[in-house]
């Protein structure tokens, strides 16, 4: 180690105290002048180079949530006792934990890896999966599945070739090597995401109650160990420089700030950690993600009951020339930090040896409430860990309703040029259906999903294109979970408050459609720059809307992530709050698939819910290039009632398949149900047209909420109708499953063959991406 110390002058705490006027690169590290002044005030002196590195990453927007904390508190405040009942670990830990009963718990979280995935799509997307999976392991859970909601620029933009191929193969290359089934997600193409693609990653894990672990360093004399991959020069300042600033063509390439993943190391790390948990060999554990060792040491120490002392030269390096500050900031992947009692050191080392995992003992837990980091014995960091990890800056940034919002909302589809000459005749409606299901957002995405392993683990009961991914947790009882992720950036652009609620409503509905009871929510809030009052308003409204809706639906937010600065120049993305809802299924064998099979021939097709003239922000309006007006009306009471119908009907065997209505409305839902297993149907729109006072076009393409289609066996129709009328839910019998016709027939309007539908639906991705 001695040759390392020769390479650069070590800025010790003593040196900092005696040289107050040394110029420090705080601005280059992303700190604002008031923040630097605050650090000097906290320390009573200038920070050392290493301390500056720590504060700069931990006080970045990405790690500190400084612009959003004041708003995010609503998720903790708008909660009832009933909502907390099954919550074992809430927000603030690596991931929230929800009780499933029978001694089982589940933990899940969604995170963004947006900026790295634009700079270096393959590694950015791959390490997004790696990072979220380590969050799940940190809770003591075995990861059981992943999902990935993706948003790209225009499908025909030349850069989409680079980004889409890179992101999809990155997710596949990393996720497939971990043995985690990829059970769903969504893919949206919109020019608004050009240059700012959204790559969100979700992981879910299962654990027995007794295996729950938290990230805290307690017990004086306990040892602190770093294990997994070595620390290298990749991802330095990823959180501060990359994730907390807007892109700008004038700045140099940011590739060195992107981490590089090694999925094999991660897979070994997963198994190794699970073995540690099983033998109860760790007291506390933390993964190394954004801000690397800075984050892990300060959070473990801040959450514990004492302090921590770490000798930084003990860190195993890939590159011996790294400075202490770089070591503290490095975001090298596949690393974990744990606190181990001296009694367990030998057993811990045996597990490392079995899995051939490198580790180094860095230091120990102290009782002085300080985080002290030394370099060959010389003190280079001496801080109160809470000031680094918990009590960072907090801004109540100015926000105001944009002055263009009124004009945007007044520009309705019906009144616009795009809303003229709408399809009326049967032929026109048929052409519109085919155009819709072939469009970039509505087309078949199996070009993507077939590059992911959805079967590994043998517990996948539903996966994309079904409404929710369903995985079994307990093989004996069939206990499992369903998860769906949803967002609609166009809706949220038209009305940020309603848009966030609509995202929740859709994911809640999707989970209920699979037959599961919604239990918890994780959110990934993707927005532009918080320094723009317009964007800050969208964000504040989104958080207010989502927290209000969670309260009304009775599902708590257990964790998530905020991704800001998703903009190029002053052009921000649409506000995109991606909401993941997790539901519980007592027996996954009862889950409801999203289409009917041949043996469902003759089953009755019902539409649950009512349809209004709601085309603003719709996929159809999007096809015509129009975005304006107000998004579909939110009715959370109706969503709850619909959810109850879907869950009970599934549990009592009254329905064999179900699909929610969302983007693309009835036209998309019917087409997708027919295409799921290639089995046709005969339906008529007369009843809903007369009842709801709408025309055929509106019936097919409106995106009114709180609706779903179900297929009911003839023997169950009486019971089904009794239940829906007892609950006051409106239903209409649209028609029947027809296994002989090989077509979707909308009586009196048009007939489209399954082959025509398939050709339209499946051709688009292949056309653009090969």
């Amino acid at each position: 180690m001695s040759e390392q110390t020769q390479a650069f002058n070590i800025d010790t705490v003593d040196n900092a105290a005696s040289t107050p006027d040394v110029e420090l690169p705080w601005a280059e590290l992303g700190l604002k002048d008031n923040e630097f002044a605050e650090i000097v005030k906290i320390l009573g002196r200038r920070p050392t180079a290493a301390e500056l590195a720590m504060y700069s990453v931990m006080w970045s927007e990405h790690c500190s949530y400084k612009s959003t904390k004041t708003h995010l508190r609503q998720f903790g405040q708008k909660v009832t006792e009933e909502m907390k009942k099954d919550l074992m670990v809430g927000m603030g830990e690596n991931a929230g934990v929800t009780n499933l009963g029978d001694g089982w718990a589940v933990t899940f979280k969604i995170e963004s890896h947006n900026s790295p995935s634009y700079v270096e799509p393959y590694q950015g997307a791959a390490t997004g999966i790696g990072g979220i999976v380590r969050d799940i392991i940190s809770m003591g859970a075995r990861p059981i599945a992943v999902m990935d909601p993706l948003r790209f620029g225009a499908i025909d933009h030349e850069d989409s070739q680079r980004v889409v191929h890179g992101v999809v193969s990155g997710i596949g290359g990393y996720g497939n090597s971990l043995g985690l089934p990829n059970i769903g997600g969504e893919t949206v193409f919109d020019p608004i995401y050009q240059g700012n693609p959204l790559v969100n990653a979700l992981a879910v894990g299962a654990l027995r109650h007794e295996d729950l672990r938290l990230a805290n360093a307690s017990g004086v004399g306990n040892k602190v160990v770093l294990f997994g991959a070595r620390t290298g020069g990749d991802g330095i300042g990823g959180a501060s420089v990359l994730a907390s600033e807007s892109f700008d063509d004038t700045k140099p390439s940011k590739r060195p700030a992107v981490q590089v993943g090694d999925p094999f190391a991660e897979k070994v790390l997963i198994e190794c950690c699970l073995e540690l948990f099983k033998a109860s060999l760790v007291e506390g554990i933390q993964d190394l993600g954004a801000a690397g060792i800075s984050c892990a040491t300060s959070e473990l120490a801040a959450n514990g009951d004492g302090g921590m002392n770490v000798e930084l030269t003990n860190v195993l390096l890939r590159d011996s020339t790294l400075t202490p500050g770089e070591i503290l900031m490095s975001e090298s992947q596949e690393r974990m930090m744990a606190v181990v009692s001296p009694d367990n050191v030998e057993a811990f080392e045996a597990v490392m040896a079995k899995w051939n995992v490198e580790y180094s003992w860095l230091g120990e837990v102290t009782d002085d409430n300080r985080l002290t980091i030394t370099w060959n014995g010389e003190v280079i960091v001496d801080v109160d860990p809470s000031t680094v990890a918990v009590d960072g800056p907090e801004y109540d940034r100015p926000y105001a309703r944009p002055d263009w919002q009124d004009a945007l909302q007044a520009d309705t589809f019906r009144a616009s040029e795009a809303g003229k000459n709408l399809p009326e005749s049967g032929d026109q409606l048929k052409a519109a259906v085919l155009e819709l299901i072939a469009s970039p957002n509505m087309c078949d995405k199996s070009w993507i999903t077939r590059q992911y392993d959805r079967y590994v683990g043998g517990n996948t009961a539903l996966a994309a294109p079904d409404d929710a991914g369903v995985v079994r947790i307990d093989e004996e009882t069939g206990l499992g979970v369903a998860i769906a992720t949803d967002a609609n950036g166009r809706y949220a652009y038209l009305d940020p408050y309603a848009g966030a609620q609509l995202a929740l409503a859709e994911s809640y509905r999707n989970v209920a459609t699979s037959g599961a009871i919604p239990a918890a929510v994780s959110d990934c809030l993707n927005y532009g720059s918080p320094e723009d009052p317009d964007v800050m308003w969208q964000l504040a409204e989104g958080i207010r809307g989502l927290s209000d809706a969670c309260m009304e639906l009775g599902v708590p937010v257990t964790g998530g992530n905020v991704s800001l600065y998703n903009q190029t120049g002053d052009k921000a993305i649409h506000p995109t709050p991606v909401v993941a809802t997790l539901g519980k299924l007592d027996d996954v064998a009862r889950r409801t698939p999203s289409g009917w099979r041949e043996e469902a021939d003759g089953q009755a097709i019902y539409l649950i819910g009512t349809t209004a003239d709601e085309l603003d922000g719709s996929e159809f309006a999007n096809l015509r290039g129009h975005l304006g007006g107000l998004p579909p009306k939110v009715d959370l009471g109706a969503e709850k009632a619909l959810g109850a119908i879907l869950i009970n009907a599934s549990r009592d065997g009254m329905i064999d398949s179900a699909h929610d209505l969302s983007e693309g409305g009835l036209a998309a839902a019917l087409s997708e149900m027919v295409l799921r297993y290639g089995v046709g149907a005969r339906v008529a729109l007369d009843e809903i047209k007369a009842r709801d006072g709408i025309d055929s076009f509106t019936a097919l393409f409106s995106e009114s909420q709180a609706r779903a289609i179900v297929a009911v066996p003839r023997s169950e129709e009486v019971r089904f109708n009794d239940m829906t009328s007892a609950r006051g839910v409106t239903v209409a019998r649209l028609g029947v499953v027809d296994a002989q016709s090989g077509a979707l027939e909308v009586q009196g309007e048009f007939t489209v063959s399954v082959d025509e539908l398939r050709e339209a639906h499946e051709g688009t991705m292949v056309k653009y991406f090969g």
Partner: protein
Amino acid sequence: MSTELPLIGDYSTPTAELSGARIGVVTFPGTLDDRDAARAVRAAGAQAVSLWHADTDLQDVDAVVIPGGFSYGDYLRAGAISRFAPMMDKIIDAANSDAKLPVLGICNGFQILTESHLLPGSMIKNDHLKFICRDQVLRVENDQTAWTNGYTAGQEITIVLKNQDGQYVADEKTLDMLEAEGRVAFSYVGWNPNGSRRSIAGISNAAGNVVGLMPHPEHAIEAGFGPDARGTDGLTFFTSVLTHLVGGKK
């Protein structure tokens, strides 16, 4: 057809005599489908025995499954490092011994078997250069091996295919030999999903005790948790070896 499928979680045991069979499932660093393979063994009515790559004790198993995954990350060449594991030495010896230990290699396991020279040929990257996961129809070409005797030659089965390096290649002479000796165990039906020579999905050794294939029978053993077709077509691999162990075909 669907009404005859077993209920989820109902692993009906074939025959009482077979329940004592012990089938090893090898785990390497980076193995992914070991728990699935063990589940398939149990579903067939046998006892699954976990074998660690670094150990040298075969624990008296009656047969061995080398499951899929990315052992050692496939970083050098799929299966190239695992082939040198101490456990593989034992398995190679036992497979070549007079006792002819039945060995099934699935996906990465198949790659390890070719690297071990228990089976000829090799696997390279799929011709379309992408990972592919799909429900795959196979035709049973040889129903005489230790792992296929429960099928009927010509039968079509649907199991899961998922791989990155699944293109089976060998020189023409070897391919001719495999076909002439009936050692092609399975062929892809319809579209060739990875560019494998002569649409070969799986092969056996001359004695028929060693079988390797790219698709995954262990993912098609339980209705509702495998191919969309809800099939349990893969279970027959694991019941076949039990039949083989009690000394009889069919």
